[in-house]
């Protein structure tokens, strides 16, 4: 998925709602993110466009809330609770995800397989 930073993005997205889990004293989501506009996008192994500075899911802990909710490795996070995640720093994204006063995060994610699926179905018809 390529896009022009700052421009509206049209993408096939999936909504994922993750209920945070208490792990000790911490509320966790059970995945990790990489990327952000302050990171080197070329090191992102998941992005198709190596200039994409979006936030990507880099790890999903087994059995964790994220996995349960259907989040997958390599998903690109477009929004968190309505906040845009395509033009944020890594830390900003992290903060949006880890707000203590929110038990639930609603993600808008896109993943290549989704796009592929749509593309295929469009080609078929």
């Amino acid at each position, binding site marked *: 998925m390529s896009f022009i930073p700052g421009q509206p993005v049209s993408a096939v997205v999936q909504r994922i709602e993750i209920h945070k889990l208490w*792990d*000790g*004293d*911490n*509320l*966790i*989501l*059970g*995945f*990790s*993110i*990489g990327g*952000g506009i*302050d*990171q*080197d996008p*070329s*090191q*992102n*192994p*998941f992005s198709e466009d190596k200039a994409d500075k979006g936030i990507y899911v*880099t*790890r999903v*802990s087994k059995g964790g809330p994220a996995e349960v909710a259907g989040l997958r*490795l*390599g998903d690109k996070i477009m929004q968190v609770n309505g906040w845009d995640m395509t033009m944020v*720093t*890594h*830390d*900003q994204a*992290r*903060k949006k*995800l*880890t707000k*203590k*006063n929110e038990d639930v995060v609603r993600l808008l994610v896109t993943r290549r397989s989704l796009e592929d699926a749509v593309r295929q179905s469009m080609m078929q018809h």
Partner: protein
Amino acid sequence: MEEYDVPSAASILASVKEQEARFERLTRALEEERRNVSLQLERGSLPSDRLVGGTTGGSNQPLAWQQMVMQEQSPSNQTSLAMMQEPQEVVEETVTIEEDPGTPTSHVSVVTSDDGTTRRTETKDNVTNMKVTKVVKSITHQTFRPVILTESKPSPSTATPSETKPVTKMVKTVTTRTVRQVPLGPDGLPLPEGSSPLGSYTDSIDRRYMKNGERFITPQATSTLTRSYNNYSDSYNDAPDSQFRHYTLHDGYGDMADNYGSLSRGVNYRPYRPYMPTGGYRPENSYTLPIRKDDYGHVAQPQVPMGSSTMDLNRSQPERFQPEPYGLEDDRRSLGPDDEEPYDLEPDYSTANRRTLPGRTIREPLRNGPRMRGYEDPIETELIDERHPYIHGMYPAPLAQPERGSLASLDRMGGRRSPSIDSIRKDPRWRDPDLPEVIAMLGHPIDPVKSNAAAYLQHLCYENDKIKKDVRQLKGIPVLVGLLDHPKAEVHRKACGALRNISYGKDHDNKVAIKSCDGIPALIRLLRKTNDMEVRELITGTLWNLSSYEPLKMVIINHGLQTMTNEVIIPHSGWEHEPNEDSKPRDAEWTTVFKNTSGCLRNVSSDGAEARRRLRECEGLVDALLHALQSAVGKKDMDNKSVENCVCVMRNLSYHVHKEIPGAEKFQDPSALQGPGSAGTQRKKKDDAGCFGGKKAKGRKNGEHDKNYDTLDLPKRTEPTKGFELLYQPEVVRLYLSLLTESQNFNTLEAAAGALQNLSAGQWTWSNYIRATVRKEKGLPILVELLRSDSDKVVRAVAIALRNLSIDRRNKDLIGSYAMRDLVSNLPSGQQRPAKNLEEDTVVAILNTIHEIIIDSSENARSLITAQAIDKLVAINRTSQSARETKAASHVLQTVWSYKELRNALTKDGWNKTHFQPIPTGTPKGSRSCKPGYDDTTLPLMEKNQGNRGCSGGDMIPMGELGPDGYSTIDQRDKESKYKSSDVSSDLQEREPLKNDTNRKHYIRSNRPTVSLVDACDVKPQPVDSWV
């Protein structure tokens, strides 16, 4: 095993008889051989001495390949040479080539008995169905201990190799092979026990007796026996129990049993190798895959190109295509992830191979089935030139290239290998050694084995915390550390590589383990000794990793500070003690070594006052760092990690200079509370005369009186400043301002602003100069500009720097007029967060800066009002979730209200007194403030460190109370790191946070006091990966 049952009883009987007949012949042949041998023995028992040296050590190593190595290439292995050349040795070699149903086994066993007899048995099955059994018997008088490659233990899991548990499997496999002392007599003669070969085939036994004296090889007896060599070789084992081990060991035996139908054997080994019965006999090698998987499964060993089995490697996959964030696996250092690094990593563990075999990448071989394993290569060659086996073949070659290491034998062979061989041998039956074996091999007397073992360890540890821990628990770390002192470059390089990977990660126990076996001095010693750039990178990378753990920082300083400075920092910085006037000043070189070392120093520089003192007083360090930074500015090349590290060190060292440098009291501003009247007397102290001379005193005096003047009388120096004095010379201001103007790296920006913040804090002469110099160098607009930065921490550092700078009255006026709007725009307005959405700390810092600016300046307060700040302040005061923000906003509001001349304007805008009063309904807020749910842990620290900034507050933020130090953040960072040391430093550095810690970490990070030392940040690898 079905085939097993196929033959009819009659045919079995027939074949048994035939086998017996063959056996008889064989026995006769053996007898003859034995006579020959004993003859030889009698003739010469002299040469043993020569051999002894080399042979003694190797015996204990469990691994088959090691033995191969021993024989083939290592010097100690003179044995092999000796055997060949020395008069008294007898080499007996038997090679059998037979048609085989295609069982995919190949095996080599080498048995050396005390009497010096070495037997080597190779069994190979190739695609072409070639099987070779070779028995080499050499009699030498050596202390070689017999090693049998056979497996003694059952490997239950092998039957169903699954990918999921590579490790366990591996372990099992490992257990299958044990090194045993074989109680063989010189001519351990045959127990024909297993000998009822069903199959009919011909064994050809080549015996070559080597008479060393004459140096010729005589194939004295070449007899073709109809007997299976398996039996033959077995017969050498006197110990009954060893026999089945033999069988089990050799995969090949499985085949043989099948083919030849030696019942006893089959029975023996079957239980141990469950998989053999099922898959082993299938012609298509179908079972080989699982087996390999099993054997090689989790080990992607770069050095050993694997056969087709590699497809199944569990481990190789993840490693290569690790989903890990940007693959920082490189493990180099916990700290700094350079962008490129992840991809550099590979070379680290696979260097040997790559170097030796250009064009043949490790990975590729793994994917291509037919690649042979290294160990086998020798065998292949042997196969090819059977007639001139050990003597001329490969052995000389290995000796010629000892540096390759045992595994290198493979590579070596690779070069020689003919395509036909490739096709022949598809399935090497080698397994990778397990961890205890690898660690044991570190102590192997043969250097290449050591280095390969270390390289393999490095590879295994890569991104595998479990293995790191296992290595530690198996006491591998002290051995590796011991190898650092090894004279051979290959060995200490590999050991260092392994240590670097081990030292990376959250597990501080690994770091401690390295330290507690004196690894740090050993690394430093090696750093002094070696000129190999790669080794230096590894050393400094390891040190960087180690430096991330708080308790080790001082140790590193104690052992390595001056060495790192002399060996790396100074040479790479381009700084010269006594610059040659003719030569152009050199620029800094941003080498990896420099980056690693500066990263290490950056970490250790945060360890507190003592660490700072040591670094400041380290000869040449400050000079070199400054030179490097100046060179960076000159070249406009300041976005790299090295610059970031240097600036961070400088910032840390600038912290509390006004208190910590020797003789600082002399410069205390008498007007400040700290150094009342003592200044005068102190000034007269002798030290004073030192570097600064009398002028300084004068300068100070001017400074204190001229705070408000634009012109400042800087002290004149009679001689160039050096060392730590450079830290606070007004000249550095220009450097930092250049960095602030030019750099795009947020960490660098933050550090440079933090350095100015630190330098402008405090009431002493030099901070007066600094504050004035920033103004004169037109630094205020630069700083104000940075208030618009997208980076939270940059905004925070700049805000606090402005606060410190505004101690200077003139600065305060300027900042009040020109910075207010940008300060205010960073404040959140009510519900609607500003675009930047700054962290609480930043907001608090900005509020405090605003407060500082408007104190004693109704003009500034007025510009605050005109900047539409009251709206925001009131909103924060009333609605902010953060107690600290509320408190800080409240202070500002109270101060504003205290200017009676402004009240008119305020009420005109619709405000009244209640808006400016602390919220009386403090219950909710109060409770919140005292116990903000999320960061209980950090709060006390904040309170302690930040004084009023925390929720501890008085009504106002009196400057005196805050003191200059309130503004400089290093201590906070120190404390923070001390209290939560492990978490802080580790999380910042490591990219794989433990789940439990993550949230806490994040909070810590986000709450980090404004200008704190950057060191923590550093540690964080560039490509960040955060658990949420």
